[in-house]
């Protein structure tokens, strides 16, 4: 007999989303399949690649390595929630474009989440801090230099308001 569904209320990008889910539904599958927020990517599904990173109560976590039931009552920010307004880009997103920090784009949502979390804690990070912050995220096409460049570009000028 399949286990009963559990009711969860997860605040995603500022909106509380009540749903009934199977306990084994991962947070990333919840975001993509239940809410249609397909910006968060599913890579390895066992905590190696970092593509599924989201902010949980402001801290970066891997949404493939937790079940949606564990996020009940908590606040999640996905890549769709990083921009200040609809149709805009955050400063870091804009710098990713400017510095060619993405090619195929698969790692990009996870990279952006990692970089936003870094800049929220350290508005002017050193190169070493940037490399440490993205060390849990794999990129297979551009390499990492342009991503480091993009974060430096976004944080070098007048702070990093809005990340």
């Amino acid at each position, binding site marked *: 007999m399949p286990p009963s569904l559990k009711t969860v209320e997860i605040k995603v990008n500022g909106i509380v989303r009540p749903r009934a889910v199977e306990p084994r539904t*991962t947070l990333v599958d919840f975001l993509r399949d239940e809410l249609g927020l397909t910006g968060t990517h599913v890579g390895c*599904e*066992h905590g190696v690649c970092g593509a599924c990173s989201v902010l949980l109560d402001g801290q*970066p*976590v*891997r949404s493939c*390595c937790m*079940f949606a039931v564990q996020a009940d009552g908590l606040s999640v920010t996905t890549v769709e929630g990083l921009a200040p307004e609809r149709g805009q880009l955050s400063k870091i997103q804009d710098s990713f474009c400017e510095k060619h920090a993405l090619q195929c784009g698969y790692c990009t949502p996870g990279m952006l989440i990692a970089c936003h*979390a870094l800049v929220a804690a350290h508005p002017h990070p050193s190169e070493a801090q940037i490399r440490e912050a993205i060390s849990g995220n794999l990129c297979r096409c551009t390499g990492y230099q342009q991503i480091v460049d993009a974060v430096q570009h976004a944080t070098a000028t007048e702070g990093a308001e809005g990340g």
Partner: protein
Amino acid sequence: MKAAPFDYVRAESTMHALGLLAEHGGDAKLLAGGQSLVPMMAMRLARPALLVDIHRLTDLKSIFIEAGRITLGAGVRQCEIEVKSELDSSVPLVRQALRWVGHSQTRNRGTLGGSLVHADPSAELPLATLVLGATMRLHSQTGGERRVNASDFFLGPMFTAVSESECLVTVDYPVWQGGRIGSAFDETAIRHGDFAMASAACQLQLDAQGVCRRASFGLGGVSGTPLSFPGLAQRLEGERISAALVAEVAHAAARESDPGSDMHAGAEYRRHLAAVLLSRVLLQAANDALAAH
């Protein structure tokens, strides 16, 4: 890569969790940060019928810093220990080990106790906990409290002294008394934050003349459990820490290890790394102790 179906209960208290363990036995599994268990479930290496979520239990998150002892709750997240600089004056090895653990995304969820009970042979926190001679407090509904020393805790790969009905609640780290105490942790991995091919940890104490009075050291990733070497540590006591002595002891320890081979590193290479890393941390800890007051 999806977990098999299971039921889920968020425990309201540690007693509630222990009651569920007593009721469901081996079918139930405690879930804390899930950074080891959830991937194992995704790969169907673990198929618990019931997950008991203890991640939000505040009574597992206590941190007591006393003169002779540091007590860390098993549910304390690794990211919380990472910023506890107060630990550096008493058990600096804990934070030295933590620098090698995973990535910020995993440390934000992963707990101290979760890493210890998962008992990956190459994990850093079990090695540091063994070298420091910590005591684990295990609770169960029927047995009350049981205390297990780290040397009796790690029994094999992913295998500890924790029974199906028990929960690790706190870890007591003894604090060495007196001055001139140094410690160091080092490891080699494919990429920083990945599983160690080999790791080494040491804490030692020198006297005013620079003679070693007390030493404890160990190796990770080169056997089914982290290893400590109390017999070899005695060889350092009463001696000045020289490069020759350190090399002799480190090679003797590496010979006692029993590393496996995989696609990343063969057994001989891991044994070589063990000797190199152990020599390094012994010298670093001695230098650290000389610099300490």
